[in-house]
């Protein structure tokens, strides 16, 4: 009898815990879902090993649920996925299992850590959220996907925190070290830099500074298909 009661409490406790995690994620989604469209100015800093590239300024456009586009006049290295795609992933709580995984301070704010595992096999294998329960905005997200490996996204909020629209987002991306044969690059006279680190992987960061948001304005679909 005692054993049964203990098991019952564990199951009820787990469900309650799980519902809380789901609820927090849904609150986050509901807050962001008020944003149907936005456009803004974006200033991008690149900190990618072996890539020497100046900062670039452009615009970004979003249209719910999945359309997103950066527009730059020049070469830019960007994350492969739309930074707001994850909101679409968390909107349907029947498609994933969410588990509370403790708390942690991020940007001096107490955050609840939630691990999310999709029930069905897809590109996203696992996601981890650090969400401020007071604002319901994710301050940090770690997404493990088949196509892009592990991507860490850190959001800094300001004027548009009420819509979970960040002023600054830092993408940390696992990447392969850049290397091509000297003869192929016709770089036969340069000195080779001998690195002690023999691993083929390294980490790159891309910092987006967003400003001048115009939210829920009319955005032509053509913008998302233009090259």
């Amino acid at each position, binding site marked *: 009898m005692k054993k049964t009661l203990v098991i019952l409490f564990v199951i009820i406790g787990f469900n309650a815990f799980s519902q809380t995690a789901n609820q927090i994620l849904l609150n986050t989604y509901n807050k962001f879902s008020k944003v149907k469209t936005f456009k803004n100015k974006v200033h991008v800093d690149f900190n990618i090993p072996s890539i020497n590239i100046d900062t670039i300024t452009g615009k970004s456009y979003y249209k719910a649920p999945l359309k997103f586009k950066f527009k730059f006049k020049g*070469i830019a290295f960007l994350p492969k996925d739309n930074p707001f795609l994850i909101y679409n992933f968390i909107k349907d709580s029947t498609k994933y299992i969410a588990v509370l995984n403790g708390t942690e301070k991020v940007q001096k704010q107490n955050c609840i850590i939630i691990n999310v595992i999709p029930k069905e096999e897809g590109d996203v294998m696992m996601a981890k959220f650090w969400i401020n329960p007071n604002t319901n905005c994710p301050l940090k997200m770690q997404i493990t996907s088949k196509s892009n490996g592990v991507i860490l996204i850190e959001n800094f909020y300001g004027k548009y925190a009420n819509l979970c629209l960040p002023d600054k987002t830092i993408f940390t991306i696992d990447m392969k070290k*850049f290397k091509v044969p000297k003869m192929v690059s016709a770089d036969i006279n340069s000195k080779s830099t001998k690195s002690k680190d023999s691993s083929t992987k390294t980490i790159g960061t891309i910092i987006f500074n967003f400003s001048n948001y115009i939210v829920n304005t009319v955005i032509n679909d053509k913008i998302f298909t233009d090259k």
Partner: protein
Amino acid sequence: MWQLTKIELFKIFSKPRSYIGFSAVTAIAIVIQIALYADGKSYWDFLIQSLDESFQIENLTFNGNMVCFILLQALIVQMPLLVALVSGDAISGEAAAGTIRSLLTKPVSRSKILWAKLLANEIYTFLLVLWLGILAWVVSLAIFGSGDLVVLKSDSLTIIRGADSAWRFIAAFGIAFLSLSVVVTLALLLSVFSENSIAPIIITMSVIILFTIIGTFDLPVFNQLKPFLFTTHMIIWRNLFDNPLPTEQIFVSIGVLVLHIVLFLAITFYHFKRKDITQ
């Protein structure tokens, strides 16, 4: 002086070998441009495939600035040989043909004759670099369009914004001209010491090939020698496409190249003014 230079220019351009340089530059540029027009994108995709796996690379189009850079890499190494073909013949060619005596009997000082020959060879070199600039840069921009320049090294990529690349190319052509001037003065120096038309050309080419090979190998003994070889400093044009610009390194190399020119000219003038003309 200008009259003498014009005569020397006439001599240069009346020799068929003087057109080898222009023909070679034209042929190489056209062949590379056709090849890159046909396969440039797939070649480029192959080079950056490791980055393409991690990032979405926006606006990376194969453009005229990138083609120009590839052409410069391919051609600037070969151009000293083309210049030596003309400059190495400047004095020794006249000695071999027996015209040096009649030239020196004119009421003009030996120094003036040598200055005229130097100036004529520098004008020839300038025209060759200008031709390279027109073919490599202007024609490439016309065919492939403009855009950001991607400088590819074996372990890094530097992206120079399109608007920031024009002055770098102009400076690169300037340094290429300075580098070729070292070759002109070296060939002229060897030409003064020789009475055979071919020897100075062959020796100049051999010196450049030897120095370039030494510069290519990453061996400790060669690394000690490299700072003293002019060929090491001739490739400094590439550093103009670094970000941030290694200004000190560029000026040191320019200084070394100028010192070589001064040294070679000093020996040339010293010897030519005292040379006993026997033929």
